[in-house]
Every structure is written in structure tokens, then in C-alpha cells.
């Protein structure tokens, strides 16, 4: 149970990093790819999938 919470924290941390990279990325194609990768991270953190 505790470990599961840690996993949500890890996912949220890297999700935040991905989003920050999206914001900072100058290359639009890369920015879009960041968003695509971010999808499962967000859905998992919100316990939707």
C-alpha cells in the first residue's frame, strides 16, 4: 500500500518533469511528443487507468 503511494509519487514527479519540458521546448514537434507521452502519466495519477 505504501509502495503503491510511492509509485503515484514517482509517476507524478516524472509527469511534472514531462510537462515542464513541454512548456520549455522550443521545438513544436518535440513539445507535442511530450504531451503524448504524458497521457498515461496523467491518467494513472488521477487513478483513471
Amino acid at each position, binding site marked *: 500500500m505504501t509502495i503503491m503511494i*510511492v509509485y503515484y509519487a514517482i509517476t507524478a514527479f516524472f509527469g511534472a518533469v514531462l510537462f515542464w519540458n513541454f512548456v520549455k521546448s522550443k521545438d513544436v*514537434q518535440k513539445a507535442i*511528443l*511530450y504531451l503524448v*507521452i504524458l497521457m498515461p502519466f496523467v491518467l494513472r495519477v488521477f487513478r483513471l487507468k
Partner: protein
Amino acid sequence: MYAHAGIVLGVMAGVFALARLFKITTELSMLAAAIGGAIAHGGLISPRHIADGAFTYFDVTLIFITATFFMNLLKHAGGVDYIIRGIINRFHRHRLLCLLFLTLVMLVPGALTGSGSVTVLVVGTLVGTVLTYMGISKDRVAAIIFLCAAMSAAAPPINLWAMMAAAGSNMPYVGFFLPLGVISVLGALFSMFFLGWKGTPVQLDKVMAELPEPAQGMAGWKVLLPFVVFFGLVLAGRIWPWTMPTLGLPLMFMIAAAVTVAVSPKRLPIFTVARETVQGLLPLIGVMVVVGILVQIMALSGARGLISLGVVTLPLPVIFAALWLILPFSEGLVQYAAAPLLGVPLILLFNMKGINPIIALAGMAVMFPIGDMLPPTTVVGRATTMAVGFKGSYYRGFVKRCLIPAAFILLLGTLYIIFGNELSFLVAG
């Protein structure tokens, strides 16, 4: 059904080509192909298929990110420089021992995690640097790193392709240790010595002068400790599987990362390293997420079934003659998904034809990882060129160098399948 699946496949290929023509990256072109295929299948499908597909390799993505994060922290702390200096100091006079030692170092991470990418991410840069100082050209170094990483993924105890195919055909993952071990160790040694035997002796003074000085206060135990903790956790999970809490690989890497931060002689910029990690991995995890979406749409539209059917309905001699091409390319196309997609029907087919399924699956399971350098995903191949800093042409430089040892490995795998019954004695292990 044939026409429908065929049209969807055609549309996918067309959209992909068109997107590439408009200078869209491979990853986004594949995404466009998936969306194009979905529309060709049935107009506007529920967007949850996109999200569903994006989850296909989520576990593996997390392992990649955490493993690389750990290695990058270690690099920032100066640990990698320290290890390289140590190995060169100790082994620079004995080429044979040095290559053997490096092969072993390469095999361990992937053997334990089942992932060639983990090998490349954890030890690829390090071994690559040592090999470069042994007078081996960058393209050969990249080829060695990739092939050994592929063999480490194939090596027992964990071979994900064999495990996934075994799980899919309800066969216990038992008896694979020797069949997989023999073939993967042979393959790794052949690659290492074929490409790395010739070179120049290490010029110790010059190398030591060129190598960056490790950070002040760096010490052997500080580099070793995170690895000891990591492998200790993996081993503990094996030795006491029912008393150790289930940590999972991502958390093990995060704990190793925490240890690295704790013993580092200097303060590490954690958020910056995390950003660099994700940036460096973008092509890798980007491709995995997009391939997941593509596979989902192919399954939805029957395109996946059409491909599977095409493969398993080939006559047996043709399968023997073509598997060494089909398996790596399917791996290049859909990654681990190739194991359930082709591995399961093939293993059931072999079983039906009276070929020892364990040996046959072991043979197949070492052929898959060779495809990790092939398009469209090129996951481990690209990770390798990134890790060793190979700047030449990907296909004409790197892939070409891999061909001969790769052919050797593929030949071994094919022989395994054809002579599955004669080799049954290996299963006893």
C-alpha cells in the same frame, strides 16, 4: 475482412510516408498513421483507444526513465568517470581478460531485467568509453554495445519475449535457463571478440590525462554502493520472494538514485537531471508510447490479425528460412508486442508440429532483440548510439557493423528451432 484490414494497413503506410515527406518526425508520423488508420477503420473512433494504446508499454517506460535517472545522477556525481579509470588501471595490459570482464558487465543488467535498454542505459556509456580507449572505432564500439545489450536481454533468468510467449501459450517459464544461457553467452562473446579483438593497446598515461578527473571526495565505495543496493534489492526479491515487499524495478532504481544522491561528494541538481533524463529519452519512450497506440488501432481494425495470419500460414520450411528476418523486423515494428503477436501463434504451431517448444522458443527469444536496432522503432539501437556518442550514419555506419555478429546469432537461433528435438537435453537445466 481481408479487404478492410488491407485498406487500413495501406492507409497507415500512406499517411506515414506522407507525414515523413512533410518533415514530421518518425514518432509523430507513426501517431498520424495510427489516427489515419483509425479513421479508415470506422470514422471517428472513441479517443479512449488512443489513451488505451498509450498505456501498452507504460511499465517499461517507467523502468527506462528511473534507470536512466539513476545513471545520470551517478554521472553527475562523477561516479562513471571513477569506474572507467578504475577498469583501465586494472586491466589495461590484458586484452582478453578485459574483454571477458566487459562482456560480463554488459550481460548482468539485462539478464536481470530482461531489457537491452536497461543494459545500455546502465553500463553502455561506461563500457563504450573503455572500449574506445582500447583502440576500437566508434562504430564498432556502438555495435558491440548494442549486440551485447541484445544478448543481455535474451540471457536468463529474465527473457521477456520467452516469458510473454510462454505466458500466452500457457507454458510454464521453466527449463529455459540453459537453452537461453548457451545461446546468449555465445552470441555476446562472439560479438565482443569479433568486433573488439583488434585494436591498439591502451596508452595508460595518455588516457589518464585525457579522462576527466573524478570529483573531489569520490571514492570506490561511493560508486559501488548504489549498485550494491540495487542488485541487493533484486537478489533479495529472489531469495526471499515472500517476505520482501514487492518493490518493482522502478522503485529499486529510485532507491539506488537516492543512495547516489546521499553519498555524492557534491550537491546534485535533481530536477535538472530529471529534465535531462526525460529529454534524452524522448525518442525512446516517445516511440514506445506511439507504437502502443499504433498496435491498439491495428488490433482494432484487424490489421494486426492480417499480419499474424500471414506469418503463421507460411509453409514450415519457409518459416524456418524466414524467421531470422521476420522476428527481428517484427520486434523493430512493435517491440515486445512481437512476442505475443507472433511468438504465441508460432510456438503453438511448432508444438503442433512436434518440435520441442522450449528450445524453439529459446531460439526465437534470442532473435527478437536483434530487431531493437531496426526501424521504425530502433529503440535500443538509438539508445546505444546516444550512450556511446556515435555521430556517424545510423544505418551505413552502426547497423552495417552489427550485421556479421547479428547473422551469427540469428543462425544459432534458427538452428535451435530446426534441431529443437536434438537439443532437448538442454532443457534439463
